């Protein structure tokens, strides 16, 4: 062990690895860390902390992430994945409606996990997320100058179990230990709580690129207690973009007499144009959607009043969850002391107006709505690492958890808005003599019937002692942990033994599949490393080859005995032969051999240089 690596023991605050906070967003992602006491976002190589959540999968070569991939959205839309967060933890049937607007297509077998066919391969949403996370990890490592292996990642508060699990899988595939999943609105409250540590009730209205959340929290002496949460995991700025896109496509169809809706390149350019217009309308009273394509121009004047009228139905969809959330918290709008706005879509004036009208309060916008969630995640990272001791988050589960009983009815075990971790136990028995298995179907949702709730998983209680029907007594414990993820354990009450439980997730990857992806990414990382080594070794070999070629033109070469000349030529040829192979270790050894063989030549050259210098002749 080198001197620099000596461990100064566990008391040293630097001995524990740093935990970063990550906002894995629909549109953009960020990484932040706790610097002494204040959270800070970490910029990438381009200086911006926002990494577009876009991954380009070229037909050959490594995927490209972020701003670089944004360009590919225009040039290679079929192989460029964006808004992958909307596909997390979902199956093909869930996203059939919106896929028509996305340029990439699904591979077969997407029922329980979506598989995107891009760049001649198949990728799942957690893998796409992992590419973005890996980029953030690298950005953090570059700035912090140390390896980053542990993270807090934020998720929409209204994410269900499968969506949370998919996010956690993305972290694992990216080589990150996910210490905690934190709900985005709660994280935002933490970020705000740093400056003003007062007591009161706050509502966080989080309207992002693809998801909407509302959370109501009680703040009391550093304790952030979530009273209720609600939302829509399929409602965001994307919906506004799609709406404007449809309007523009109709315009163009009637103006140009041409339907562009199947032309991916045109769609991506037009999408860019309507997004630009949407952004401008946050500050300007009117703008123009400008789109040039195939030698034709489309210009549409768009005053804010028209824009507002168009998007009102979308904004109204956020108000229902807000009212339900207030009712669940047992509060009236007047009892909310502060309102915090989070997410890029809250820059829209109509959104601010709607929030103001509902809560009868001027919303807080001091922190950058794009950064506030990542900043809060960094605070939570500080809580977990022990750097922040005076704050604690008590969050809730957004959806009720239940099991399917006779007649397809759901029996609720843990109600929504229960503080997590939360648990429930239920006893099961057998229906037939000698029955060895009991299958339990777990669901999430508020509806009465199983078919109207989200199927979460089927748990198979296996190897039950074969006894008479009704004699078996299996106690099953359902535990929702602090990440909002379900854990199930079972005990045979007759024997007191732990009962084995086999989990079949309804949506999402199995543990084995995630493990395989982690392995593959390690292999990939090794391949990447090898490729880089080969490239670097060749550069070095180029230099050596050039130097030797040049020396062979010098007087010193001709002073060498013929045997030594032959030795050098032999080593030179061997290096040239290995040069185009992939074995960088071989190239290095051939380089060393050449270096060794030409030592006499180098000495002779040095001597003649000295002689030349003594003679006053400059030798080049």
């Amino acid at each position, binding site marked *: 062990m080198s001197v620099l690596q000596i461990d100064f023991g566990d008391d040293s605050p630097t001995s524990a690895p740093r935990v970063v906070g990550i906002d894995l967003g629909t549109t953009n992602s960020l990484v932040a860390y706790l610097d002494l006491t204040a959270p800070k976002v970490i910029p990438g190589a381009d200086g911006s902390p926002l990494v577009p959540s876009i991954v380009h999968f070229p037909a050959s070569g490594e995927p490209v992430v972020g701003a670089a991939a944004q360009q590919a959205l225009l040039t290679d839309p079929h192989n460029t994945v964006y808004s992958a967060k909307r596909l997390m933890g979902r199956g093909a049937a869930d996203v059939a409606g919106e896929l028509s607007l996305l340029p990439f297509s699904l591979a077969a077998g997407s029922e329980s996990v979506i598989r995107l066919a891009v760049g001649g391969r198949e990728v799942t949403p957690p893998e796409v997320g992992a590419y973005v996370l890996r980029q953030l990890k690298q950005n953090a490592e570059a700035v912090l100058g140390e390896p980053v292996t542990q993270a807090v990642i934020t998720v929409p508060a209204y994410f269900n179990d499968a969506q949370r699990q998919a996010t956690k899988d993305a972290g694992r595939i990216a080589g990150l230990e996910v210490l905690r999943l934190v709900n985005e609105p709660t994280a935002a409250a933490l970020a705000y709580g740093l400056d003003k540590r007062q007591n009161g009730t706050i509502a966080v209205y989080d309207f992002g690129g693809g998801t909407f959340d509302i959370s109501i929290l009680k703040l009391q002496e550093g*304790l952030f207690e979530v009273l209720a949460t609600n939302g829509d995991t399929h409602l965001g700025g994307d919906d506004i973009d799609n709406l404007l896109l449809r309007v523009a496509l109709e315009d163009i169809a009637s103006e140009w007499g041409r339907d562009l809706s199947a032309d991916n390149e045109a769609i991506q350019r037009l999408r860019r144009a309507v997004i630009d217009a949407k952004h401008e309308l946050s500050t300007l009273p009117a703008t123009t959607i400008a789109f040039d394509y195939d030698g034709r121009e489309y210009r549409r004047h768009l005053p804010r009043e028209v824009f507002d009228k168009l998007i009102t139905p979308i904004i109204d969809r956020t108000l229902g969850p807000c009212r339900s959330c207030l009712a669940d918290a047992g509060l009236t709008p007047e009892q909310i002391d502060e309102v915090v706005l989070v997410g890029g879509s809250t820059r829209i004036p109509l959104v601010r107006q709607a929030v103001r009208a509902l809560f009868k309060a001027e919303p807080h916008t001091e922190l950058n709505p794009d950064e506030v969630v990542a900043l809060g995640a960094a605070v939570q990272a500080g809580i977990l*690492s*022990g750097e922040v001791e005076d704050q*604690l988050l*008590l969050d809730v589960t957004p959806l009720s958890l239940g099991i399917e009983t006779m007649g397809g009815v759901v029996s609720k075990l843990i109600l929504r808005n*229960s503080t997590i971790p939360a648990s429930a136990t239920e006893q099961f028995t057998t229906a037939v003599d000698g029955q060895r298995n009991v299958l339990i179907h777990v669901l999430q949702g508020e509806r009465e019937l199983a078919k109207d709730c989200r199927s979460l998983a089927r748990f198979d209680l296996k190897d039950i002692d074969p006894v008479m029907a009704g004699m078996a007594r299996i106690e099953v414990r359902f535990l929702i942990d602090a990440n909002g993820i379900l854990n199930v354990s079972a005990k045979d009450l007759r024997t007191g033994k732990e009962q084995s439980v086999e989990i079949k997730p309804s949506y999402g990857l199995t543990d084995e599949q995630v493990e395989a992806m982690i392995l593959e990414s390690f292999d990939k990382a090794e391949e990447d490393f090898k490729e880089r080594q080969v490239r670097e070794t060749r550069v070095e070999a180029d230099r050596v080859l050039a130097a030797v070629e040049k020396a062979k033109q010098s007087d010193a070469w001709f002073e060498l005995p013929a045997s030594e000349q032959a030795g050098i030529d032999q080593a030179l040829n061997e290096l040239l032969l290995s040069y185009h192979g992939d074995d960088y270790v071989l190239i290095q050894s051939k380089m060393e051999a050449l270096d060794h063989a030409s030592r006499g030549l180098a000495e002779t050259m040095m001597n003649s240089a000295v002689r030349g210098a003594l003679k006053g002749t400059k030798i080049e």
Partner: protein
Amino acid sequence: MNSLPSDYYSVFGIAPTLALDLPELQRQFYVLSKQFHPDRFARASAPEQQYALDFTSLLNDAWRVLRDPVSRAEYLLKQQGLEPGDSRTNPPPPELLEEVFELNMALEELRAGDGDARGPIAEALDRFLAMRDQLDRDREALFVRYDAQRDAATLGDLRALLNRRRYIENLVRDAQQALS
């Protein structure tokens, strides 16, 4: 490693009474949360992490059940071996039969599109709410009586009261749903 508390009352280290000082219980909930929450043990050993998770989930479950007087009473009854009756199979209390009959008529009329039925439903709702309030006052009295005597007879009365309350609660819910 400490073993987990065996019931919701012992999580808080308090005697199993029906009447509780809620602000004090809440204060205790916050104190224990700050002490045992899994976030405080993110870097602890695996058994410590497991204990923090198990204890905190028990604490949260206990706080959720004990803070509400009705669920608290149901919990204590269950602990004493008195399962509550199933409200779906229980017949309506006899003195409510006529009320329930009239409410169902009005609900059906409203469903059939007769807006005039809203008036009688709203009136019925007011009566049910008043009944519920009265039951809650009676329940408080039973709480005090049980805590003093700790007798089976009071628990029996409490069980009957809770069954009746659950029935009225369902009527309140149906009426409110119809009116909203």
